[in-house]
């Protein structure tokens, strides 16, 4: 079984846990044979690499989402980026792609979700980004979804 080590309060640990929970992958949150070690403050790059390595084939995302998710991790609540995502999702809703990279959730969604959710919780209102709020709702409604502690 995969073991997930790292502070449960770290965004990067949460990203990986979210993948495990949503993709229905068994794991335990401690040391283990196939070790993923993530400490608090770990780099987004490491988390993304772990996501791409561990994600099942249908959870893989186009490489361009790496750049977008990294930008978001570096400067959460950046208006231009939120606007881009909102616009992308609005057209996605009309074109049968309710998730960021596809018709089903992938690591693209997982890479971007924590920042969006945290900005919501931190009171940076998502009011100007209706499609982003609907997308966050869709992710929250997936079986296995767990919130950020």
């Amino acid at each position, binding site marked *: 079984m995969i073991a997930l080590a790292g502070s449960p309060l770290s965004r990067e640990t949460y990203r990986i846990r979210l993948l495990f929970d949503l993709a229905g992958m068994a794991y335990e949150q401690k040391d283990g044979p196939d070790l993923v070690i993530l400490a608090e403050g770990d780099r987004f790059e490491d988390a993304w690499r772990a996501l791409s390595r561990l994600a099942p084939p249908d959870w893989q995302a186009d490489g361009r989402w790496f750049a977008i998710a990294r930008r978001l991790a570096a400067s959460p609540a950046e208006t231009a980026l939120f606007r881009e995502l909102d*616009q992308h999702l609005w057209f996605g809703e009309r074109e049968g792609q309710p998730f960021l990279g596809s018709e089903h959730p992938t690591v693209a969604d997982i890479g971007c979700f924590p920042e969006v959710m945290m900005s919501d919780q931190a009171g940076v209102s998502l*009011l100007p980004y209706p499609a982003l*709020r609907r997308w966050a709702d869709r992710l929250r409604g997936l079986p296995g979804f767990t919130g950020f502690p």
Partner: protein
Amino acid sequence: MDRVVLDEWHVVAALESLLPGQEFPTRLFNTDLTLVRPAGDIVAAWPAASGKALPVCVRHGHVWTSLGTPAEPLFDLPFPLAAAGSMAIDVPPERVLDAFRDDGAVTPHPYCVLREHAAAALFIQPVDDDRCIVHLLARDEAGRAAARLEFAALKPILESQVPEGLPQPGTGSWYPVASSSDLAPRHIFHTALAGQELALWRDDACLANVWENRCPHRGVRLTIGTNLGTALRCQYHGWEFASGSGRCAILPARVTTYPCVERYGLVWTSLAGAPEDIPDLGAAYWQPVRAVFVEAPMAEAAAELPHRDGLKLFLQPVSDDRTVIHGLSSDPAVSLREHDELLTRLRDRIEGGEA
């Protein structure tokens, strides 16, 4: 109000609904009250506004108080009855009285009906002019269940006779606040109009609601709550507010609701204001384009609006310095992407980011 009625004891809660140590908000004759039950049968009551203690008596499994000075002790019951549940109803207390004053019923109190043949009683708590809480009583468990069933069946019938108090379209200033497709199933849409935050949601019967984004209990934003399909649940203490009326099923609380009309694929509302109807766009087929959020006052946006055939633009003043541009297209030859390009360029121009 009639002094005699004011000086009466009035029921304000079933004793069992007061949890020791917890404040219980309720309402009597338009007055917000707070009840607490430090222990056992000891209950204190005071108006939320003044804090001056009111007389209290605990009898027949219920808490009674008075906004005046009761001259006499509360009436007796010929046999013991137990609380069977309390329900809010959007009907004046007199109408509930009428509905239950059938043959053989007696009224030991202006707002209480005792039905000896059924071994049941009804204590009515007048909340405001057109609302009350009905406290049901019966002798045993079977009687309590029957009383609840009977009342649950009667409640919608009584309520449906009450005229809706909502302003009619055409009596205010109407703005689009969302597109119909924004209100996804089980979603709560968040927007604002003239600084007033709104929570919009569609129930499972497709009815759209435009509500103030504020829980009447402690003012928590309803947009962080849950759309249950028939009601909205507040995230904080779980109070639920019914689609349409915005009323809480159990407690005398109500969300502020605004009129809502869906037309041309947009959701329109009005906070009331200068008379101005929803624009009449005729019978053409209108398709909403993606609304664009602009960080600028409405007047600045209005000054920049282009005129194009087959495209109608409407402004939603979100607050003093934020505006949403809604658009309707009647030209199927222009794609939604093209419209979006036009509107995002317009946004950038208004915001001054691009010449």
